[in-house]
């Protein structure tokens, strides 16, 4: 029998967990205790997946998990100035929560002028005030336990972003959750956790941004959960520009209720090995999920996107567009699962994965995975792998634009479609800027 999980390398994570736990000094609620205990036990049993595991076929986690990562116990060690914060993240108007090495920094965060009833705050303190609300949702969706990294994240829940939008409230400015990893003595791991609840008829935009300030090795193991209430609109944008030496494993789970609209856009620039697992579950009729992503994969990088859209009820729609730009010896993966459960008649789902190969050494594995158990559905999917078009380059050159600039313009143009799906203009502009500087490198 093939070995789907390995227990090698788990011990150092268990040791690190003990260290983390003792650092809490009993400063922990009963709820957290229970969730943690359950999660670490599960992790201990399972360990990490091997490439024999179907879901981890392309991503060998050994180079990640053989590192002796340590969670950062206190942020006193890392004084952070405002300049570090503003230089490293989206600076537009937003309700902003800043975390450094996993710890909340109130002095750099701003939640002024929130509409009545809206909660935007650090998950740590929030658990005391809103215990019942958080307990009902956090780590309650079994999916999150199938994934060893998500389980580890749950075991380490301490801080992160908590966003609650009450009924019929429309939040104009986005909520910006900025997760920074800064230099440290040890090889650091952080476990950012985000919980978003949009009540019926509400609307919000959440940005999860992950950034490393230096060229260092560290691990970000993140989980975001969203409960998208009836007839509410949630835009969830993930901007990942970690250090090129870093590892990033991030999952998100969205549960959509009746007539909910969920828009997930995952932008991946950084990291040495990156794994994105966005999930959307359509759990009420009339729901719509748009799952988009852009991945720029360069020298020595692996970016693996495993997306899942689960149609559980009738009359829902989903739309998915993932685009990849692969250069040098970069390796990209797109695996797009669409489940249409037996009850989910009249599902309408479109999936598209497009890849631009800029080098002969780059590699892309693309696989749609449609599992359809209902008969009256419309599901289309397509994948393309191409190069820059010679005639387009010639057209630009014939106008005086040099070859290199022409290639960059067309590469940028290929990517913008995904970014233009971001409705917030300031955020869109920011991501375009990041793309531009990545292409200029």
């Amino acid at each position: 029998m093939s070995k789907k999980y390995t227990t090698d390398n788990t011990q150092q994570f268990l040791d690190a967990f003990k260290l983390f736990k003792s650092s809490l000094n009993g400063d922990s609620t009963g709820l957290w205790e229970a969730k943690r205990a359950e999660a670490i036990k599960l992790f201990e049993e399972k360990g990490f997946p091997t490439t024999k595991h179907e879901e981890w076929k392309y991503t060998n986690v050994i180079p990640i998990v053989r590192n002796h990562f340590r969670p950062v116990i206190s942020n006193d060690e890392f004084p952070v100035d405002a300049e570090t914060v503003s230089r490293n993240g989206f600076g537009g108007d937003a309700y902003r929560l800043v975390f450094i090495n996993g710890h909340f920094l109130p002095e750099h965060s701003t939640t002024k002028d929130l509409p009545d009833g809206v909660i935007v705050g650090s998950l740590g303190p929030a658990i005391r005030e809103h215990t019942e609300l958080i307990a009902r949702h956090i780590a309650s969706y079994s999916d999150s336990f199938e994934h060893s990294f998500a389980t580890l994240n749950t075991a380490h829940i301490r801080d992160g972003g908590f966003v609650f939008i009450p009924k019929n409230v429309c939040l104009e400015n986005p909520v910006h959750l900025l997760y920074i990893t800064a230099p440290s003595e040890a090889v650091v791991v952080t476990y950012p956790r985000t919980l978003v609840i949009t009540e019926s008829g509400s609307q919000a935009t959440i940005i999860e941004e992950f950034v490393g300030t230096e060229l260092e090795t560290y691990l970000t193991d993140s989980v975001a959960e969203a409960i998208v209430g009836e007839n509410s609109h949630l835009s969830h944008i993930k901007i990942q520009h970690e250090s090129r030496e870093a590892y990033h494993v991030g999952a998100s789970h969205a549960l959509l209720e009746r007539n909910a609209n969920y828009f997930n856009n995952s932008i991946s620039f950084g990291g040495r090995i990156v794994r994105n697992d966005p999930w959307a579950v359509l759990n009420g009729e009339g729901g719509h999920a748009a799952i988009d992503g852009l991945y720029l994969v360069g020298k020595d990088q692996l970016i693996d996107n495993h997306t899942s859209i689960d149609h559980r009820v009738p009359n829902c729609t989903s739309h998915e567009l993932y685009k990849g730009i692969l250069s040098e010896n970069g390796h990209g993966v797109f695996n797009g699962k669409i489940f249409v459960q037996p009850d989910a008649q009249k599902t309408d789902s479109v999936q598209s994965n497009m890849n631009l190969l800029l080098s002969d050494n780059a590699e892309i594995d693309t696989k749609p995975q449609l599992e359809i158990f209902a008969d009256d559905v419309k599901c289309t999917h397509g994948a393309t792998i191409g190069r820059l078009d010679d005639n387009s380059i010639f057209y630009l050159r014939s106008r005086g634009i040099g070859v290199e600039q022409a290639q960059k313009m067309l590469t940028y143009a290929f990517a913008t479609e995904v970014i233009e799906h971001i409705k917030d203009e300031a955020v869109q502009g920011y991501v375009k800027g990041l793309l531009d500087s990545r292409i200029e490198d």
Partner: protein
Amino acid sequence: MSQSILDIKNLHASVEGNDILQGINLAINLGEVHAIMGPNGSGKSTLAQVLAGHEAYEVTSGEVLYKGFDLIELDPEERAREGLFLAFQYPVELPGVNGMYFLKAALNAVRTHRGEEELDAADFMALVREKTGVLEVPKELLNRPVNAGFSGGEKKRNEIFQMTVLEPTLAVLDETDSGLDIDALRVVADGVNRLRRPENATLVITHYQRLLNYIVPDFVHVLSEGRIIKSGEKELALELEEKGYDWVKEHAGDGELVG
């Protein structure tokens, strides 16, 4: 004596191993407008693409002097910066490339080459406003991605608009009139006529004599099977329209040239 801008001597070119141009000779002086007419597949676009430097077209012999230097040696972008402009028969769609951004990059590439300062966004916009005014180019076209989803006529207008902004020394228009209604044709012809100055020249490639009512050429050449088989003044176009290419072929003594 008038000054030569383009001198094509015994030009042979092939594409994918097929010899298409079979010895073209053509001399254009500054201040002149030349028209090339010819049946489908005679090599008109091949000539245009060779002049612009498309890599798929291989020059197998002959030479092309542009402003006195060897054009074939130059990269396509260097030709453009030296004032050569090709209005494409089939302009390429560039989804995701903003029209304004594209044109500003093009203009600044030319300006930098000439040792002029790059235009900033504001100055560029002012220039565009001025030029769109006279050319009646809908502003929306420029805010959209280049040619993406444009109608045939919109694409042609966009080519002429680019030409107007870039102010080339030698413009080559490859069937810019094809498929245009009379209003669009006037816009295109106006664009060309406005640029008509003693210090530049135009090569108009067309199927139809109609365009030449609006852009009156100094010389007309008939291209057939990769060669210019007859040249004359503007009356040749009318004669051609009336009697057809076969008449020209016979009249030119086609057999003699092929030998």
